[in-house]
């Protein structure tokens, strides 16, 4: 297995072989980030590809002095590119909420990284996140999951810090409602 350093160097030198290895290695993780922001699976796949194109075109700007931190820095860089590309698309669509179910085929039921029960819970939680209106979804994802501060979010979304905070509050309230509804449903089934 190639080391991240070798792959990055190969990508910087423009070797298609290393670019392909890089793409194959990080595509899955990138999709998981994008799909939290973008409602439609096919659109998410396109955004991931757009993100990688941006990455390869700007790879010369990528700097990491310390080899031990390379993987961490790289992941952060990819995450930032993917999130920005996703937000660009949502902005293009005027942050209008989406409609329609999430088809079952997008879920990897054979994923062995967690127990089946856990996987189901995670899947349901992600569906809840995706059902949030786009602005709330972006703020919730950026702050709660991706660790952005409200100042950073306000800067990226071009909104006041207060708006970012209130959006997060409303998003959390909606999530709480979803969770309560889910619990009520479970109780009814029991």
């Amino acid at each position: 297995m190639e080391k991240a350093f070798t792959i990055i160097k190969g990508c910087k030198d423009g070797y298609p072989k290393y670019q392909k290895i890089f793409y194959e290695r990080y595509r899955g993780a990138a999709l998981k980030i994008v799909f939290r922001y973008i409602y439609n699976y096919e659109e998410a796949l396109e955004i991931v590809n757009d993100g990688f194109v941006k990455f390869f075109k700007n790879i010369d700007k990528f700097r990491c002095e310390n080899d031990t931190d390379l993987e961490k820095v790289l992941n952060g860089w990819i995450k930032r590119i993917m999130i920005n590309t996703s937000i660009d698309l949502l902005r293009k669509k005027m942050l209008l909420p989406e409609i329609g179910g999430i088809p079952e085929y997008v879920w990897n039921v054979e994923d062995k990284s967690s127990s089946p029960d856990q996987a189901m819970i995670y899947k349901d939680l992600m569906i809840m996140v995706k059902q949030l209106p786009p602005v709330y979804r972006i703020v919730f994802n950026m702050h709660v999951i991706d660790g952005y501060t409200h100042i950073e979010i306000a800067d990226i979304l071009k909104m006041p810090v207060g708006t970012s905070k209130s959006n997060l509050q409303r998003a959390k309230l909606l999530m709480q409602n979803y969770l309560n509804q889910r619990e009520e449903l479970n109780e009814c089934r029991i």
Partner: protein
Amino acid sequence: MQDLKNDMDELFQRAAENYPLQPGKGEWESIAKRIAPAEADDVVLLKKKTYRKSTMLLLILALPVGWLLFRNISPHSVGSYNYSAKPIKENSFQQPGENNGIGIKLKKDQPGNNTGAQINRYHKKILQEGRIVSIKLSTGTGVEYAEEGQSLVNKRLNDTKSNQEKKSILTPVFLDRINRGFPGPPGVKTEPGGSLNITVATENKNLKKIQGQTNSTRPGKQKKNVTASIKNKSIYIGLVAGPDLSKVQSMGFSTAGIATGLIAGVGIGKSLFLETGVIWTKKYYDSKGSDFSMDKIGSGMAPGMIINDLSSQSTFIEIPVKIRYDALRKRNGVFFIAAGVSAYIMTKEKNLYNVTMNGSQEKMTGLYKQYNYGIPAIANIGIGYQQNVSRLLQLRVEPVLKIPLKGIGVGSLPVTSTGLQFALIRRFK
């Protein structure tokens, strides 16, 4: 409380890290193309030059191909019928007034048989297998030639001639092909059991029905019958395009869409054609929320949400199967009516919803790329006119009406469409 919030955040962080998502198929090839280094200007210039040269070469090559395809096209002759089955027999001669354009009389050119104006005699001028040939039409006093593809139906010889001669009506008979069993040049010899492919012009309506009998009333001669059956074996293909206007129930028409594709047809009767094709259609339509069925996407809707109305943009592949009937033939064209059904495959649907959620009006979008289909889902009715551009090329204009038999798309909307289809058609014999 703070702990609960922290727990919730942590739960979502873990979920985001580990939720089971299909990685999908990678599209490395498309990315590789997009990130390929930009070519130098001189390379681009060279490519442009090569492209121009290739285009020129293709055009030069296309010319002989076009000539081969259209060399047999004649501007006047428009109908092609196959006469076969019963033997076409030779009438030795006729009385004046006989066979005025309702039969086929072919006979060898024999000196002495020409008895002046009383006989209309037909013999071939040039005969070549597989090609349209010219027929010489002769009367006692005047000779007229029907050139290749020319029509002389019901054409009187000459206004200056006598009244009796004026009655002589020339029947155009253009030999298209002499089948086996007939000798080649120089003489046309019609033998029992043989058949002829004859191309006739359509100016004379009677000629569409060339059939039945050619009688000889010569005393003492046995009545001879010439029967020819008409079989329409024509096949055609065409390019079709035109605007498409769609609406749902009482809502008005929205922006005009487009329909374009390929059609193909085959003759199944004297004036009947079976037609099919593949039509790519883009439709725009608005509908009320009450017409939108939630059966297919109900699970994805937020509880308590009501759709007030929506605007849709859909892309279909439509496969029509219809019967065309040529109702009225004109000099250079035909009026027809067509009816049939269509199946559709929906490749993309994009809806913009106006919804009421928690008492407030909101806008929402929905994009559906999963293929949705219906067989058959649309009834088609059309009335049109087909104009002959040349012997094998035709232009068609057809206003069409498409009535839904089933609901279309994720909301099973009853989309009614109308449009004007223009087609360029190439006929094959």
